């Protein structure tokens, strides 16, 4: 596998309320889902986002071939050092990830 975003059908991130961000990785097929599930560990997500691994909630949704990661925002939405009001850019880190 090379670049995650080229392998899966869609990756998006968004606020889940002002204090959380959630990332949805739509794998597109069961085969890709199984592969990504194996390779995309919480430790990798932690490294990518600088969020402590113990705070990352991971959901593996087989019926949708979706992996979902939710984690607290490092800067609360709209606080003075927040850079992205809607939390949508963090998805690009996942898209560009080399697994």
């Amino acid at each position, binding site marked *: 596998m090379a670049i995650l975003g080229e392998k899966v059908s869609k990756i998006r991130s968004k*606020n889940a309320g002002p204090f959380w961000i959630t990332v949805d990785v739509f794998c597109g097929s069961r085969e890709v889902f199984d592969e990504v599930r194996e390779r995309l560990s919480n430790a990798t997500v932690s490294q990518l986002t600088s969020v402590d691994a113990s705070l990352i909630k991971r959901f593996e949704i087989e019926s949708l071939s979706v992996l979902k990661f939710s984690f607290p925002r490092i800067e609360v939405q709209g606080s003075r050092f927040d850079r992205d009001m809607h939390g949508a850019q963090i998805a690009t880190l996942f898209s560009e990830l080399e697994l």
Partner: protein
Amino acid sequence: MKEEPDIICIDGGSTDSGPFYLGTGTSKYSRDICKSEWRTLMLARAQAGVPLVIGSCGTCGSNDTVDWMYDITIELAAELCQSLRITKLYSELTADTLTHALSAGRLSALKPAPEIDDESIGSCTNIVALAGAEQIGAALATGADIILAGRTTDTATISALPIARGEHSGASWHGAKIGECGAFCSSKPSSGVIFIEFDREGFTVEAMADGAKCTPHSVSAHMLYENANPFILYEPGGYLDVRSARYVALDDKRVRVEGAKWQAESNYRVKLEAARIGGYQTTMLALIRDSRYVKNASLWVSRLAEFCKDKISECTSLSPADYSIDFRLIGTNASLGAVENRNGHPVELGVLLIITANSQATASDLSRIINPFLLHYPLTDNEDLPTFAFPYSPAHCERGAIYEFALNHLLELDDPMDGFILRTSEVSYG
């Protein structure tokens, strides 16, 4: 309208645009747009002869934005010659209510939550509780044609009627979550409207727009949307559990859903939102086109930041805790900051300087101190001074007060209507 709905529901708010709207108690949306869309809905309501409900009026659902929506409704009633019974549901709480709740142990923190005490609660400019099915149900019970609700959960405007009629409680909440963003659960997310039929066992969701489809995938995937946990959704009084939900296609447009469960909790709790002033901002923007400066921008900006800090402590009585100066390199890492892991070779860079202080005057004074250096600061000590591009004059821009979210807490209530206020009135233009 051919489907003869029993109710028309719309969600009018969110925290997604940030704390400013709740902090100021104002709407993000243009009044003209709201009025134009509300006109369409008021006409549809008159035709269907059913209640029309809007939750979280005017983005933040403060009392002021409920009144703002009420004024729009009255104007339209006159223009459309409608006679209406209108119920307003206010969901704003006072700081006193909250400080009493804090000392009575009725506030519980969600994770993560800001630290709170009487002082921090007192500093909030607006505090709202999110209404659930009980409060919307009480508003429906007033027999209103139109309900203008303050802050409400995204789902409760939809779930309240099926719950009041004794339809399946899990399905009522589940269908409400699926329908909360309208056609987002269909193949044409921008097409607006969705139709949901609730019954004793489940619900059926149907795409309305021409060519739009609802599939088990499009419908179940909406549980992921803006939701930290795709299986569990907390609401006032309990939570929805969709782990055993089943989604079946009836045809291209309709999906049947059964199996979700509602778990009522013994203590009735509502979620709170609040915002307070987090400082006053002045911003500046400079553009760097010189390729040597573009290439070494990170070094340049860290030198500049250090220099500015020293200059401010030299020329003012401010301590570093009184202000923040935040340089964001547009073209380098302005979106992602420290977690950006790519390097590019941009032609030019924007340097966005955000100054935050305890007063607007201080923030703008700091911008005046920094101004010549943002324009001319050199990469090394031994070279001619460069001149970057300021795109406008004055180079600084006063942003006014900025706000911050101040609560991520639950409030326990003895009665679901505690703190919520219903006001019903009638207008006659028919």
